[in-house]
């Protein structure tokens, strides 16, 4: 039979350094997370035999608002989403808004097989599509049996 260390407190996590506020702190953190709006655009990465394709949802952004760079197999995206513009002029405060604005930055680790020299990017309908070709040496090659 295993010997189980006996604990005086009914809650083991409340042992030794029991701080009555820590529970509130934890709750606050969770609460904040619950209402936190995403300020990072969602993205997809698809790996095919020929290349690696990245799609990023960037509604409202123009070409000039985006900056893409690649170093090795790490792709980084930088952008700034500006506040709502209607008819080209900046509005003070909308009656109701669910849209976010501000700067964002994301880095994506791509497979090692990508060739950082062969990248194309295309922005269409608020979706950024980045295509990174794979190094030819990494492409699947059919090997004939002699």
């Amino acid at each position: 039979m295993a010997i189980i260390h006996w604990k005086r407190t009914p809650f083991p996590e409340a042992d030794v350094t029991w701080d009555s506020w820590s529970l509130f702190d934890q709750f606050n953190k969770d609460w904040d997370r619950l209402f936190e709006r995403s300020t990072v655009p969602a993205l997809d990465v698809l790996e095919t035999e020929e290349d690696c394709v990245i799609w990023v949802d960037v509604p409202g952004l123009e070409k000039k608002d985006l900056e893409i760079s690649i170093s090795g197999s790490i792709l980084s995206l930088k952008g700034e989403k500006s506040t709502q513009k209607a008819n080209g002029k900046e509005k003070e405060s909308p009656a109701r808004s669910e849209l976010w604005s501000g700067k964002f930055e994301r880095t994506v680790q791509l497979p090692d097989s990508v060739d950082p020299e062969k990248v194309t990017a295309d922005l269409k309908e608020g979706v950024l599509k980045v295509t990174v070709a794979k190094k030819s040496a990494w492409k699947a090659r059919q090997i004939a049996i002699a």
Partner: protein
Amino acid sequence: MNELTQTSKTRTLVPASSILEEKDHLIVQLEMPGVQKGDVEIGTEGKTLTIRGKRQQATESGTWLVRERRRGDFERVYTVDPSIDLEKASAELSNGVLTVTLPLKEAAKPRKIDIRSA
């Protein structure tokens, strides 16, 4: 039960939107990334304004390394105040953002009232 199992085809998303109030019109902006001009449908019926945006389904095949973007068509329904002239509503799609302009009815526009001097 069928509805629960059918996911990808029938799912609709509510696009994030903002409403701006101007002197004589309202501007509704909806974020609909990936929606093409011809796939936007704006319908009015009585007091409701329905905005739909269809998206082309991705047909690429391969291995998804990251998949965060939500799939599906967009749909949002608004109940519009009677002071808005839905007949004169106009819309514009640019960079995945649909901007709908809803003009106020003539009678509802702010009017300047001259004060007659006695």
